Every structure is written in structure tokens, then in C-alpha cells.
């Protein structure tokens, strides 16, 4: 019996070690009671000091949400979510008076960031030297925002959306919900009702954003849903690259995340949106882990605009995510580059939608799915060519790699074309890790795990190359970490 106990302890220790960001910061939080009803929404709205129209929008979304059914079409299985057993609002105490400098910041928080590897202190010291602004989101409330001055000089607005609601309500009102309508789908509607924070980015006409914008999200409190709302507007001729990366502490109970991201690109504008998602995937038995139900959509509103999505999905127990592009403007371009790695009991159902409406619109989809352990990974995508989208062009490639005989890889593409001059091409392959290549690496003295990491990194190369420098290195490491224990 004692031996068994020891084994359990050992295994547990291993799991904890494996997930190196698995710790919980103990900060008393300002929480709303569990459950969802109009009062909670009013509470959130009051906390956020929403304008009146925002509260109305939230309540309307809530009413629509009550009538909606949870979608069941995705190839994922999980225990039903009790939406009344979730805290819809949690904010660190320091919300009331924001710190003027890092000295005023809760040291506990700073330590958390240090463990996460965000050298905020250094960044503050080296301001202006290192060119990355971090709008660090800690449990739904932005705590520290840096490099604002630099951005302000260029005329770029980069702030928490709750702040934007105060300072630029007219912009938020004009664009919020214009890409993902309030009642778009079950999770987006829920988000519209209860979203607490997220980023707001506005790039004025002709401005090339002087630095890569990035936000680190982190879910900290147990039982707290994280409902982010991000809105990025790129005016005529502007350019912005936005990075989003996430880690979360280890928890046994499943945590719900339902974010909404809206991108708007006007004439000649370009938005590049990169994500590295590394939330807690659950332990090797499939216990715990984040439920990640995200609605991301970009609207190429003007001619010659471009939206590019790049994602590296290694975390979460369940992923349900389809970053899409609506190619409205003539000659607009949509891109989707994705790596989805699932190990142990993870499930990912992800892909994209490319809706071609304008003439000469182009889209490219490169998706790499890797399944190991008992994981299930699905690519689900739609390419739709409208009759008016003359000479539209799409190229899709989705490859799946299987490691082990207990996992699954699935491909569900929908291709609909109503334009004779459009050319739509789709290719997909599924195969296992090549034994010859593995043998070659092993023969040259690499360990099995190193070999697998090397081969998988090679398999993903097309997508990794699309990531900005800062992320590319991190992502390659992540690919290796995610597959630890999948062979041998």
C-alpha cells in the first residue's frame, strides 16, 4: 500500500515537473459570486465602469445566449460544463489604484511574471532599448502597460479594452461586434455578455506600428472563466503585428476560456496576428486542463488588405478554435498557418474559414496537426468562394502526423465554389513519423526524444517560419516540451 502511495506521489511529481508553469499565485481576488444572471452582468459592467450602451449590449447578448444551444458538431468530448458553477469576474486587488511605477506593483505579481519569464523589471529599466511592449493581463485585468509613450508618439492606441471604453468609446462602439456579431455563436455570445478584459489596438492611417505588440494572458484563479475580448483596427495603409501568448497554472478542475478576437483591416492595411497557446493541458490521465473555445475572425474590409493568422496550439485539454478571414475587399489576402500539437488526452478541433467575397482575393492555409499519446486532433475548415469573387485563389495544405497507435488525426475540409474563374486547391496527407528518419537520427547519437523533437520541428517548419523572431525560438522549445513522454 505504501509502495502504491509512493508511486502515485512520484507520478504526480513528474506531472508537475513537466508543466513548468504549473503554480498558483496566492492573491486575494475580488470575485463575483458563482453563476450567471442579469445581476452578475450588471456587477461586471459596474466594475468595469461601462458606458450605458455597453451594459445594454451585454444584457441583450445574455438573453440571446439563454436561447442558444451548446454546439456539439466538433469532434471533442468533455464533461458537460455547468455554466452556473463559474465565477465570471475576478480581479486582483490592486485594480482600484493602478500603480504608477513597478515599485507600487504587488511583489507577488512581479514574482509570477518572473517565473513566467517575462522580464518586466528589466524591460522597465531598458525601456526604449528592447522593442516589445507587454500589456500583461493578469486574471482579466491589465495591471501594467509599458511603452505607451512610444506608441502614443506614433499615434497607436494600445490599451486594455476596458480602458478604451472610457477613453475612446466612439471607436469601440463603432467596431465592437462588427466582425463577430453579438450572437454569432454560443461561446461568442457568452463572451459578449461577460467579457472583462482584453486588448484594444488602433493603428491610424498610414502608420506602421513601431514595435510588435504583445500580450501575455494568464489564468490564475481556480474556477474563473477567462473571457477576453480583443479588437484590432488597422486603418488605411497601416501595419501591425500582434503577439498573443498564454500559460496557466496547474488545476484539477477544468477552466473555461471563451475569447473573442476581432480584426479589421482597411484598404492597404495589414494585420499579422500570432498566437502561442500553452495552457495547462491536463495531466497524463486527462484530468484537468483548460477548455479553450475561441472565436477569432478577421475582416479584410478594404481593397489590398491582408490578414495573417499564425498559431501554435500546444496547450489546453480541449481546443475549439477557427481563426477566419472574410475577404471582402478586392485583392485582399487571408492566411492561416497553424500547428496543433496534442498529447496524452488532449483534443483539438481547429481550422479556419476563408470567405472569398471580393475579386482577386487570395487565401493560403497551411495546417500541421500532430497527435501523440491518446490525443485526437481535427482540422476543420471551410473555403467558400462567392459568385462575385472572380479569379479568387485558394491553396490549402493540411498534414497530420501520428505518433503512436492510440491517437487519432482527422481532416474535415468543406470546399464550396460558385465562381468559375476561381481556383481552389486542397491537399491533405496523414502519415506516421518516418521510422527511417528516426533511425537516422538515433544512429547519429540523438536520444529518441531529441530525434522526435527534431523531426516534428522539421514537419512544422513552414509554420514556425511565419512566427516573429521572439516567438519562433519559444515555439520550437514548446514543440519539444509538448511531446515529452510520447515515445519510448
Amino acid at each position: 500500500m505504501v509502495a502504491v502511495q509512493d508511486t502515485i506521489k512520484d507520478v504526480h511529481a513528474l506531472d508537475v515537473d513537466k508543466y513548468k508553469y504549473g503554480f498558483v499565485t496566492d492573491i486575494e481576488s475580488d470575485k463575483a459570486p458563482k453563476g450567471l444572471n442579469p445581476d452578475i452582468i450588471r456587477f461586471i459592467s459596474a466594475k468595469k465602469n461601462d458606458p450605458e450602451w455597453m451594459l445594454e449590449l451585454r444584457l441583450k447578448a445574455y438573453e440571446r445566449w439563454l436561447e442558444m444551444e451548446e454546439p456539439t458538431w466538433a469532434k471533442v468530448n468533455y464533461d458537460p460544463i455547468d455554466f452556473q458553477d463559474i465565477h465570471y469576474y475576478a480581479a486582483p486587488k490592486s485594480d482600484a489604484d493602478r500603480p504608477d511605477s513597478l515599485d507600487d506593483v504587488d511583489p507577488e505579481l512581479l514574482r509570477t511574471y518572473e517565473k513566467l519569464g517575462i522580464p518586466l523589471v528589466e524591460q522597465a529599466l531598458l525601456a526604449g532599448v528592447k522593442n516589445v511592449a507587454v500589456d500583461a493581463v493578469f486574471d482579466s485585468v491589465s495591471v501594467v502597460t509599458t511603452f505607451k509613450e512610444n506608441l502614443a508618439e506614433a499615434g497607436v492606441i494600445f490599451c486594455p479594452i476596458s480602458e478604451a471604453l472610457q477613453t475612446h468609446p466612439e471607436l469601440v462602439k463603432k467596431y465592437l461586434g462588427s466582425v463577430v456579431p453579438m450572437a454569432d455563436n454560443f461561446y461568442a455570445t457568452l463572451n459578449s455578455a461577460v467579457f472583462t478584459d482584453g486588448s484594444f489596438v488602433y493603428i491610424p492611417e498610414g502608420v506602421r506600428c513601431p514595435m510588435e505588440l504583445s500580450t501575455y494572458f494568464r489564468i490564475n484563479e481556480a474556477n474563473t472563466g477567462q473571457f477576453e475580448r480583443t479588437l484590432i483596427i488597422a486603418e488605411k495603409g497601416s501595419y501591425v503585428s500582434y503577439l498573443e501568448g498564454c500559460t496557466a497554472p496547474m488545476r484539477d478542475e477544468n477552466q473555461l476560456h471563451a475569447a473573442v478576437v476581432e480584426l479589421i483591416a482597411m484598404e492597404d492595411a495589414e494585420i499579422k496576428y500570432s498566437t502561442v497557446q500553452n495552457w495547462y493541458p491536463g495531466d497524463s490521465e486527462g484530468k484537468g486542463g483548460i477548455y479553450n473555445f475561441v472565436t477569432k475572425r478577421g475582416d479584410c474590409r478594404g481593397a489590398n488588405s491582408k490578414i495573417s493568422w499564425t498559431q501554435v496550439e500546444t496547450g489546453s485539454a480541449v481546443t475549439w478554435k477557427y481563426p477566419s478571414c472574410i475577404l471582402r475587399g478586392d485583392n485582399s489576402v487571408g492566411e492561416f498557418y497553424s500547428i496543433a500539437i496534442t498529447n496524452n488526452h488532449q483534443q483539438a478541433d481547429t481550422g479556419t474559414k476563408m470567405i472569398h467575397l471580393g475579386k482577386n482575393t487570395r487565401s493560403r492555409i497551411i495546417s500541421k496537426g500532430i497527435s501523440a499519446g491518446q490525443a485526437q486532433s481535427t482540422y476543420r475548415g471551410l473555403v467558400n468562394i462567392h459568385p462575385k469573387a472572380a479569379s479568387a485563389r485558394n491553396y490549402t495544405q493540411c498534414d497530420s502526423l501520428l505518433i503512436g497507435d492510440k491517437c487519432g488525426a482527422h481532416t474535415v475540409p468543406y470546399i464550396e465554389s460558385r465562381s468559375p474563374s476561381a481556383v481552389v486547391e486542397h491537399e491533405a496527407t496523414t502519415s506516421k513519423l518516418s521510422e527511417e528518419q528516426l533511425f537516422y537520427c538515433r544512429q547519429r547519437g540523438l536520444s529518441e526524444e531529441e530525434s522526435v523533437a527534431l523531426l516534428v520541428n522539421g514537419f512544422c517548419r513552414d509554420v514556425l517560419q511565419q512566427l516573429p523572431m521572439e516567438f519562433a525560438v519559444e515555439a520550437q522549445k514548446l514543440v519539444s516540451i509538448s511531446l515529452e513522454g510520447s515515445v519510448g
Partner: protein
Amino acid sequence: MPLKPMSVQPTQKQTTLRVAASQGDIEKPYLDACERVLAEGVRESDWLKAHRREGIERFKAYGFPHRRVEAWKFTDLRPKMKEQFNLVRGQETPQHVVVTPFDETPSYRLFINDGVFESALSSVPKQNGVEIVTLRQSGQDLPAWVKDQLVSTASLSSGPMLELGTALMRDGLFIYIAEGTVLDRPLHVIFQTTSETAQYHTRLSIVLEKGVEATLLESHVSANGQASFHNQATQIQLGEGAILRHISVEATHKENLHVTSLNARLAQSASYTAMSAVSGGALVRTEAKIMLEGAGARTNLSGVYMLVETQHCDHTIVIDHAAPNCTSRQVYQGVLTESARGVFQGKVVVAKGAGGTDAHQLSRALLLSDKAEADAKPELEIYADDVKCSHGATIGELDREALFYLRARGIPLGQAKSLLIEAFLDDVVEGAADEVLSAPIKNHISNWLKEHEAQIIQEGHRP
């Protein structure tokens, strides 16, 4: 016959959809017809009556499919089903027999008129080891193997259309070829529609025992210009190492509805090659499920379609790799002009333990007009790691450079387009059958192109 009856259990998801579909007025006339057939079937065995009753109950539970049923996403049958189709008795021998693409090919003709087998117009092979049974002729004494086929069809292809067919079928053709039998000619099953605005529900079942090799030709033609509704169920069962080539042509009148539920089960090392050409019908849908149950089984499915006006053609295919080292190929190519719509939904499922699977899928469509539409959904569902699976899909117009090349050499537009389309389609046909069997299909394609040259030129040409 090594048949395991399976129980029919619609999944949970279908149950919820059923509620959404709610029994409408559309089903009512069909359910009434079911009751009439049941009451009239005096000569039928009690077993068959019970079997029909089960079909009715299951059809009631399903209702006609609609677009929210995933397998019917691109094909909406319900509006078409509102038309009143007469349930014909098919007792009169037809006035004239329509020409089929295989008339020149030496074969045993099995003639089915309005869903009823006509022995007078058929040439049944009289050979030991070949059994051909029809539902009507066998009356009270249904052989056990025919019953097995009926049960197996019901359990393997269960769906609303098959169940409706079980309830309403007037006749069925069952073919059994014993081990060691060699047929000297292909079997040619002709389905002809003679009565006006008729509905008929048919069964075609073929069993090949171990090592048997056979060719099955299938023609669909109509003798009138009225809309009819043909609901067909085909069951194919291949024993160890058996080989079946199955070539079908759908060339009925452009008002026709034709829905087929096809099911094939392949034992070890069996091979099933199917090739179809669709140029007829207002709405033609083939829903095929190929089950590779024995190790090393192979299937090669291909099809061409040529559609004009508002014709709608749907190929929905599921290939189930249940055993190791099986091979499957799918190639579907078609040309669409005016307001035609072509749908391809192909799914390859590789079960756990089905290592060594090699599956390939290809769907290509040519759009020749602004109003035509092509939809493709090539799906892979894989639960084994030692596999080689791939699919490709393309949708586009005729190659402009190739067209320019031909035009620059003085070939008129219509002819140039026809040439390119013919090459595009013949490619599939040549890959699927030998010369003797591919020649009739190629003729059929070439005749179609001649007849429709005007429609091909006038639409959608862009400088």
C-alpha cells in the same frame, strides 16, 4: 452465407435532429403508401411483411433528410419529395425498350421496368452456380440467403431512404454466384422508367463467393419525359479473393430523381472496382459505404459527371478501413455548366489496428458558368498510425493556356472546350476499366459533349 445481422441504432445526434425535423406533411403521403403496400401484399411471406413494418417504423423516426443532417448538407431532398409520385404496379410490359450505352457489349440483360423485373425482356444466365431470384417471383418462399441479404442491407445502410425503400419496394433482384463459377459475359441490369410521374423502390443484391470474378453493368434510362423518383438500394458482398467490376450509367430524363444507397462488404483480398457516369436526372445521389472487412481488400471507386441546367449530382462515400493492409482509391471528376451543382463528400475511416492502410482520394470539378456550383468535403478520420492517407480537391475552370493553344491553331471554341473536357473525363474512365468496358462510357461522354456543345460554349467564357 457468413452474415452477422447487426442492430440498427441511430446515434444520439440523429435523435436530436429528428426532433428538429419533426414529422411533416411531406412524409404523410409516403407513409400512407407504405400502409397500402402492406395491406396489398397478400402473397408475401409474413417475414417480409414484418421486415417492411420495421422499415416503416424506422422511416417514421428519421423523416426525409434535410440539410441539417450532415450527410445531406449539400443536397436538400425535401422540396423534391413534395411532388406526388404514383406508386406504380409495373405490371405492363413496356411499349418500347430504350437504348443503353452497353447495347453493343455482349452481356446477360436483366431488365427492370418501373422497379419490376421483366423476364420476357431479360436473358438470364442458365448456368450451375448462378442463382437469380426476384422478390415477386419467389412470393411466399423467400430463400434464406435472400432474407440474409435483406437483413444485412437494412442493418448496414440504414437511413431514411433505405427504410422507405424497404417499406415500398415492389420487387428486388438478388444474384448469387457460387465458388468456382465463371460467367462468360457481364451481367447488365437495366432500370427503365416507363410510367409517368412514378415512384419506385428497388433492391439489387449481388453475392460473389470465394474467388469468383464478375462484371456488373448498370444502366438507368427513361422512356418518358416526366419526373419520376427511383429509390435504389444496392448490396454487394464479396467473399475471399472475389473480384467485382461495377460500371453504371445514369442517363435518365433530366426531371428524374434518383437516390441510391449502396453498401459493399469485402472479405480478405477481395477487390471491388466501381465506375459511374452521371449525365441524367434532376437530382442524382449515390450514398456508398464500402467496408473493407478482410485484410488486403482493395477498392477503387471512380466517377464522372456532366451536368447542365439545374441538374444536381451528389456522391457521398464512406470507406471503412476495418482491417489491416487494405487499399482504397477514389477519383471523382465532373464538369458543371449553367446552374448545375456537383457535390462530392468522401470520407475515409481507418479503424484502430488497421495498419498498412493506403487510401487516396481525389475530387476535381470544372466550373463552366457563373451560376454553377461545386462543393467538396473530403474527410479523413484516422485512428491508426501506420497509414498512408491523402486527399486532394480542386475546383476551377478550363486551363486558359491550353484553350488558347488550341484556339491559336484554328480550332473553334466549342470544339476546343469539348476536347479539353473530354480529355479531363476520359482520364478517369481509362484508369477505371479495361478497353472493352471503358469504350461504351467514353462514347457516352463524347455523345453528351456533341449534344451539349451550345451550352458549353455560351456560358462563362471570359477573355
